[in-house]
């Protein structure tokens, strides 16, 4: 499957695709350089540029759609970026169905969340800067998906990392926010190293980093190279998408404002890993890449389970959603790991997930907005009556997520589960089983959320928030509710529409969707899934719905719960393996540098000085000792001379 051949030079509408990057970038630049002057209209400019980008994206989409399938991959050369002899990295864009899909997702959800933020951030004195960062993010994310080489992708890749760093650390007056931001950036960098090394390997073996060249040549490479590249790319994907073993940063990232969590840490950025693997489908589809694909599937499966388990134990509204995100991305990674059978499904789930997870987050934001930023679900409850719109939209998102029949999750997730069963041999059973189990757990923890937040008694009534205010829950304003409604609609209908169109549309980018026929056919799988989900939900009801819940989390709990509350000890592991040894090593090296290396230097100096101080004592001032030293010297010299001559 050679995708390179068809790439033709972009022209017409596509010729202006650079606008997609420039519009939000300009917005960001103006807002950042303009300073306080732009406070009044900053948020409008920010949102405006993104909406403009969205509009252009839509036009571009239909323009491309009008082309015949094989003509839908366009290449836009913007300028020569890094060019040294044999290394030639052009700054170019690749406009094809895959990137366009993401463009629409990013700019679409992006626009909604910009609008939402206008209301959400209304009382922040730096709202302008917030919008600047959001624009920066959108621009970088678009570069990530539009770039036509792995280096441009890397550019966007780290660009979104920076944006997410800035936004997670938005409340930088608070230490935990700053730390969370730093953690996110560092763990991403670990992934980036993998990506970078993959790029180096490509240059070494193929001599280029442009998609078309690489994909054209990769087939000729040895298994070792292909697998290495595949796994290194996966490492990058794990960093960005919060996959095992680099998942720990994503929950902490919830320290940022809720719109950020919705846009970056649910809908778009964290799915970049899925994009990367789907984009590299020509590589992963190779027969040499078998092992790489297997590793991808394992990572996906492991992550989705971890995500679910931890999600069941958390009491923080947003963190539960975050772990839900982790596990859902696990599904996507699992899907793209399946190869040709899964790329399209992964992307499909990515899109639907983008809708409902963004909606869920916005709902959470709206709840916290009305509840003095209270995020502990044990202090919430019975909010359904207080904020009906939020409740309804959130519930729709919830149903979509747990795969309620004919909502979007039902089409995307079930398809992935079915495809997982489709993997040949025992793998099918294993991965299918895991995916199925995940569905049950998902239903469980989401239902728990629903109950604890919206149903049951209002536990907050006789409580006060940290800043000592009483809670007066209220529905949010239109700028916040409208995006929620739109997303809700999307999460209801999205799956039904997309599942039909997407595979065909993506074909030019990821190849056609291979129908796999596992031991269980599709209907059986979906019945199973729905059944398991219902069971999960029922259990949740049984535990949380009927009994009154304490306001503080119970401490005497079984080991599994404790483990889950401790992120299954993921952070402890990082602590033990990296941070603490790192600190020790640093202390040790500082010591070595001061005492050892520099000590040696100063030691030599001191040694010279000391010996000098001692030797000068030989200059006693007595003539006779001088004469003695002369005589000694003379004897030595003469003896030496005679020895040289005669010995």
């Amino acid at each position, binding site marked *: 499957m050679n995708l390179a051949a068809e790439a033709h030079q972009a022209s017409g509408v596509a010729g202006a695709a650079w606008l997609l990057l420039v519009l939000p970038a300009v917005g960001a630049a103006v807002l950042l350089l303009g300073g306080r002057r732009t406070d009044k209209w900053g948020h409008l400019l920010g949102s405006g540029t993104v909406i403009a980008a969205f509009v252009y994206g839509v036009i571009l989409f239909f323009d491309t759609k009008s082309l015949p399938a094989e003509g839908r991959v366009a290449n836009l050369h913007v*300028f020569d970026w*890094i060019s040294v002899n*044999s290394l030639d990295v052009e700054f170019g864009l690749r406009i094809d169905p895959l990137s366009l899909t993401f463009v629409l997702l990013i700019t679409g959800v992006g626009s909604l969340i910009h609008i939402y933020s206008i209301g959400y951030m209304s009382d922040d004195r730096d709202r302008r800067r917030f919008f600047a960062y959001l624009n920066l993010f959108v621009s970088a994310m678009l570069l990530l998906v539009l770039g036509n080489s792995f280096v441009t992708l890397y550019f966007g890749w*780290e660009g979104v990392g*920076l944006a997410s760093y800035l936004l997670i650390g938005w409340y930088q*007056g608070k230490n935990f926010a700053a730390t969370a931001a730093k953690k996110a950036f560092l763990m991403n960098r670990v992934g980036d*190293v993998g990506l970078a090394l993959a790029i*180096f390997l490509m240059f*070494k073996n193929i001599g280029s980093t442009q998609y078309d060249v690489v994909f054209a040549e990769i087939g000729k490479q040895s298994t070792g190279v292909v697998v290495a590249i595949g796994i290194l790319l996966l490492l990058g994907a794990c960093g960005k998408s919060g996959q095992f073993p680099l998942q720990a940063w994503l929950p902490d990232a919830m320290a940022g404002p809720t719109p950020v969590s919705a846009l970056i840490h649910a809908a778009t950025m964290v799915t970049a890993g899925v994009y990367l693997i789907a984009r590299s489908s020509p590589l992963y589809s190779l027969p040499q890449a078998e092992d790489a694909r297997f590793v991808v599937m394992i990572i996906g499966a492991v992550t989705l389970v971890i995500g679910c388990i931890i999600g069941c134990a958390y009491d923080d509204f947003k963190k539960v959603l975050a772990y839900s995100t982790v596990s859902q991305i696990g599904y996507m990674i699992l899907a793209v790991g399946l190869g040709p059978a899964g790329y399209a499904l992964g992307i499909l789930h990515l899109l639907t997930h983008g809708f409902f997870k963004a909606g869920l987050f916005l709902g959470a934001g709206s709840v916290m907005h009305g509840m003095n930023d209270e995020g502990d679900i044990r202090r919430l409850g019975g909010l359904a009556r207080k904020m009906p719109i939020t409740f309804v939209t959130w519930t729709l998102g919830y149903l979509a997520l747990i795969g309620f029949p004919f909502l979007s999750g039902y089409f995307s997730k079930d398809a992935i589960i079915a495809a997982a069963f489709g993997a040949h041999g025992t793998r099918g059973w294993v991965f299918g089983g895991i995916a199925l189990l995940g569905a049950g757990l998902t239903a469980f923890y989401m239902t728990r959320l629903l109950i604890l937040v919206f149903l049951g008694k209002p536990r907050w009534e006789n409580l006060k928030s940290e800043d000592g205010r009483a809670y007066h829950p209220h529905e949010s304003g239109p700028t916040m509710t409208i995006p929620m409604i739109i997303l809700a609609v999307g999460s209801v209908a999205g799956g039904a529409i997309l599942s039909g169109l997407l595979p065909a549309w993506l074909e030019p980018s990821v190849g056609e969707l291979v129908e796999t026929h596992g031991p269980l056919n599709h209907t059986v799988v979906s019945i199973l899934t729905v059944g398991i989900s219902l069971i999960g939900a029922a259990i949740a009801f049984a535990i949380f719905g009927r009994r009154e819940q304490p306001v503080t989390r119970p401490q005497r709990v079984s080991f599994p719960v404790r483990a889950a509350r401790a992120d299954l000890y993921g952070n402890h592991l990082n602590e033990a393996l990296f941070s603490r040894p790192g600190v020790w090593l640093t202390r040790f090296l500082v010591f070595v*540098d001061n005492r050892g290396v520099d000590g040696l230097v100063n030691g030599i100096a001191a040694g010279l000085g000391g010996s000098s101080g001692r030797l000068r004592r030989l200059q006693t001032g007595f003539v006779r000792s001088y004469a003695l030293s002369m005589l000694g010297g003379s004897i030595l010299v003469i003896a030496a001379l005679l020895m040289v001559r005669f010995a």
Partner: protein
Amino acid sequence: MTSGTGSWLLAALLLVPLVGAAVVTALRGNDHTAKLAALAFSVVEFALAIASWVNFKPDGARLQQAFSFDWIPAFGVHISFAVDGIALVMIAVIGLLVPLVIGAGWADKLPEGRTKGGFFGLILLEQALTVGVFAATDVFLFYVLFEIMLIPMYFLIGSYGGARRQYAAVKFFLYSFLGGLIMLASVIGCYVMAGDELGKGTFDWATLVRVVHDAPLGTQIWLFLGFFIAFAVKAPLVPLHTWLPDATAEAPIGVAVLLVGILDKVGTFGFLRYLLPMFPAASKELAPLVLVLAVIGVIYGSLLATGQRDMKRFLAYVSIAHFGFIALGIFAFSSQSLTGSVTYMINHSIATGMLILVVGMVISRGGSTRVADYGGMAKLTPVLAAMLLIAGLSSMSLPGTNSFISEFLVLIGSFPNAPVYTIIATVGMVLAALYVLWLYQRIMQGPVRGDALIGAGGGPGTAIAPELGAKKAIADLNTREKAVLAPLLLLIVALGLFPKPVLDVVTPTVNATMCEAQLVDPVQSAEERPQCQ
């Protein structure tokens, strides 16, 4: 003899700062006029540098704008200068940095009895000498300037520096001087060798390259080591680096910029201009040694940076890590890595230069160099915070900043020839993020804290923003400071997005160097491969 109009440009480049130094020193009675004069001269110098860049023909001769006079006929020593692509860009960077340094030091308080005139005079003198070092094409002349260069710097550190300035100045001088003397042995060795070959000794670089570079390996290795030690001290490679933290910590900010941004580059420049072309065999033979030192430098410098309590020492160790990358690129022997190293030299001057200047502005506000004395400063000085972050991002070589181009080139170019070293060095990327964000968090983020910002009692004092409890009115960047940082900021972004102008100038020289060093690219592109004549 001279060749073309360029020669006059180069001559002017050498003379203007010299004259400037004399004039400014003469004017030291009146600080204000002295400052203005210094600024004027440095700006003229910068204009000249640009002009000589424009005049330079990338696809032209190996050495351009050349001129030469006899100096000591008895030894065939000439005063001959010329520039190639590498020297050209370095001279341009010097031209850029000096006005900014002068601008940054505009309002600094000098120690008792020191004058701005003397200070800026020395800086201009240093500039003239460094330009000379980069442009010299006579090895003897190069050595002479290489050593002379120490003296103004010695006085800059020793007379205008901090508490332990004497120790730092002497340490700096002795380290470099010893290195230089060892190099002298090799210089003489080459001269003698040329004498045996040609009957009459010469110091002309081009001739020496021809003569020395097919000498027996054993000889080459000794000569190589002589040069190498001198250069390794200058561009501090672990374990010869310990003078840099002291020097940087004690030097005034502007001087620290010159030290790290320009002086140290002489070492890496020497690798490129002298080691590779003159001792190809030895370079290949000893490359593993240098690579090991380079990689150690990357990791070691990064880790130590995170372990520092003093901001200026932190900067020194950051640079040590960066010099590790540069050395790695040079001794990985591919045109990409070499080009990467050269651009790294420039970008490091710009990025770290900016970082140092910004830190200097932090220090001038807080009055302390200890990291622990700061915290949450972003609330008080958002613009300053942004500048620190941007400079930091550039020195962790984030894509979109100038440093990314060079680090990427170094690594991708080094990978084919030295995969293991490259992989280890890539870990440095993570550590770089670690130390930059560590510093930013400590100084800028979190609640406002630290003796430098809040009264030692910790209680909130009178402040521009009392609700933040800052001790004294800590103002954000003023116009002068913004003006100083703006050009660097611009370059960081511009060169990050569009490095072509620099690459086009550097690459031909790098290719020529590759040819002289008898190296071939590990990754050759089918159509255009550089031709050696």
